[in-house]
């Protein structure tokens, strides 16, 4: 690039500086696929190596900066309602019972029974054995049934067992499957194995949407998060998801940022939009709104719908409802205004 001469300063355009608008941030979804079909592990590794590294300090600074955005009044109310519609209301406990799932589903369909204007949540997320029950409670409502599968949360089982797990959940009526990747294989460099599993699970899903859990808390570095995101997306994931919620480190803003950037890059080269689900440790409306800001600033409004962004959470929903009521009433409300889960 030629150095600018001092004289050119005089010729600086007088049109006002164009600030970044939402249109600018919207991802240009590629019309032609520029990503090769993966046919060997070597090819996959070469593609992953070609990805640029993540500037860890930069990602954390950007996430911290974005989390200081102030969202108030009607915008806050809109954000809260948007977040409610994006919740995957989750119960993944050993002590889950059909009764508990029934109350969860009831709450999912009508989060605030007194107010019909509150949207229903996107999905309920349960273990495979409770899918059929959830399906029967939800009936024809728009709330989807998501099921974790593939030896959740550790992912330590043979591929056959994992595929059986997926097929059973789909047969029982799951609309969405949340699979876990084999972190052991990923971290020891058996990337091809991880990829093959995603491909096989995607095939076993049939019409069900596939969310691939990267368990970012175990992936150690942001570079690994970016690579794992690509492996999942190349393998056919409809969503990539941060965490199981079962390890100490859950979803964080910088990790979500890195994943959203991977999703953006994938859309711009492979021509397919992949959703992102953040899960684990998101308990307050404030946290949720921070994620929405990061989504808007990274991939734009295309991703601000339940088809492209989800929160995996349980207690978050009550806080969203509480904050919504607080906005309406002008006074802080009691936590026990809403049913526990």
């Amino acid at each position: 690039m030629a150095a600018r001469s001092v004289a050119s300063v005089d010729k600086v355009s007088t049109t006002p500086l164009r600030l970044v608008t939402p249109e600018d941030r919207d991802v240009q979804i590629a019309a032609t696929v520029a990503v090769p079909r993966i046919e060997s592990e070597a090819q996959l590794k070469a593609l992953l190596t070609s990805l640029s590294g993540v500037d860890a300090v930069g990602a954390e600074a950007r996430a911290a900066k974005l989390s200081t955005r102030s969202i108030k009044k009607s915008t806050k109310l809109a954000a809260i309602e948007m977040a409610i519609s994006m919740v995957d209301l989750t119960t993944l406990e050993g002590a889950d019972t059909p009764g508990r799932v029934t109350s969860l589903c009831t709450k999912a369909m009508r989060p605030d029974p007194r107010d019909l204007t509150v949207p229903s949540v996107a999905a309920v997320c349960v273990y495979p054995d409770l899918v059929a029950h959830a399906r029967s409670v939800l009936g024809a409502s728009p709330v989807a049934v998501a099921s974790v599968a593939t030896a959740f949360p550790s992912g330590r089982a043979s591929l056959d067992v994992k595929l059986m797990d997926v097929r059973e959940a789909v047969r029982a009526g799951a609309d969405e499957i949340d699979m876990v990747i084999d972190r052991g294989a990923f971290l020891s460099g058996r990337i091809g194995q991880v990829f093959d599993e995603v491909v096989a699970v995607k095939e076993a899903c049939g019409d069900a949407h596939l969310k691939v859990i990267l368990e970012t808390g175990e992936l150690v570095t942001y570079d690994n998060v970016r690579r794992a995101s690509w492996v999942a997306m190349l393998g056919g994931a409809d969503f990539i998801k941060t965490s199981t919620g079962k390890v100490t480190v859950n979803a964080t803003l910088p990790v979500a940022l890195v994943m959203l950037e991977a999703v953006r890059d994938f859309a711009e080269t492979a021509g397919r939009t992949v959703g992102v689900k953040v899960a684990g440790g998101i308990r307050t409306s404030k946290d949720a709104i921070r994620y929405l800001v990061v989504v808007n600033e990274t991939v734009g409004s295309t991703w601000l719908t339940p088809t492209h962004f989800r929160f995996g959470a349980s207690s978050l929903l009550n806080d969203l409802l509480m904050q919504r009521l607080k906005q309406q009433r002008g006074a802080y409300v009691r936590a026990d205004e809403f049913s526990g889960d």
Partner: protein
Amino acid sequence: MSDRLDVRKTYKLLINGAFPRSESGRSYEVTSAKGSFLANVAQGSRKDVRDAVTAARGAQSKWWNATAYNRGQVLYRLAEMAESRRDELAQHVALADGVNARTSQKTVSASIDRMVWYAGWTDKIAQVLGGTNPVAGPFFNFSIPVPSGVVGVISVQESSLLGFVDAVLAPICAGNTVVALASEARPTPAVLLGEMTASSDFPAGVLNIVTGFTGELAPVLAAHEDVDGIDLAGAALETVDELAALGAGSIKRVYRPLGKEDDPSIRRVRAFVETSTVWHTIGQ
């Protein structure tokens, strides 16, 4: 002449056992009764009140489930701490209330005695406010006083220490947790007392103190739906009805003081207890 730098004290809020500045970053200047600069004090905000209520709610069941004996010990410990810092307290009372050293010492003595008085009440409330009721049938029937829950206190403006001690310890000794707005113009003795609770085994969140402008914070506290009772002792007279109405919006117990209350009285304790009736079969 010493060349040491001044170590000036920052007067902060007390929320959940910690001493934060106001989340708003604001502070205001407090002067002595004679008008000279006394301190910069945190000017609490709506969100500080919210955080304080969350802390009080979190601490309430544990405080009530502690034995009455234990609650008494904790309150007595506060009296011990106050006794060992009585000169500091007296100095602040003298400056804040504009009284001479002798009067301020008397106020501090009265305040410490009041702490001991409330410490003694913890395991006697049930005997005095509760009872057994005669019923037709083979049952015992008990009336048991239970705390309202989280109590908001708008501390009396003119009595910076004794008024504050009365207002916060009465609900606390009965098993409530408290969010107190300290006297707007004379907050420092209350802040000092808050610091003493940190070394008297007070569980975090049992006493939370927000300093700032009463006119700004009192409506937030009165309207907060997770507050079960409110003491309006320090509210400006013309705002009392309005605050009581805000409290009624979420069915709070509202305590309106009867003029000047210098003598200790169980009236204040009774203001924030409710009666639970328990049936028990005889001979089982």
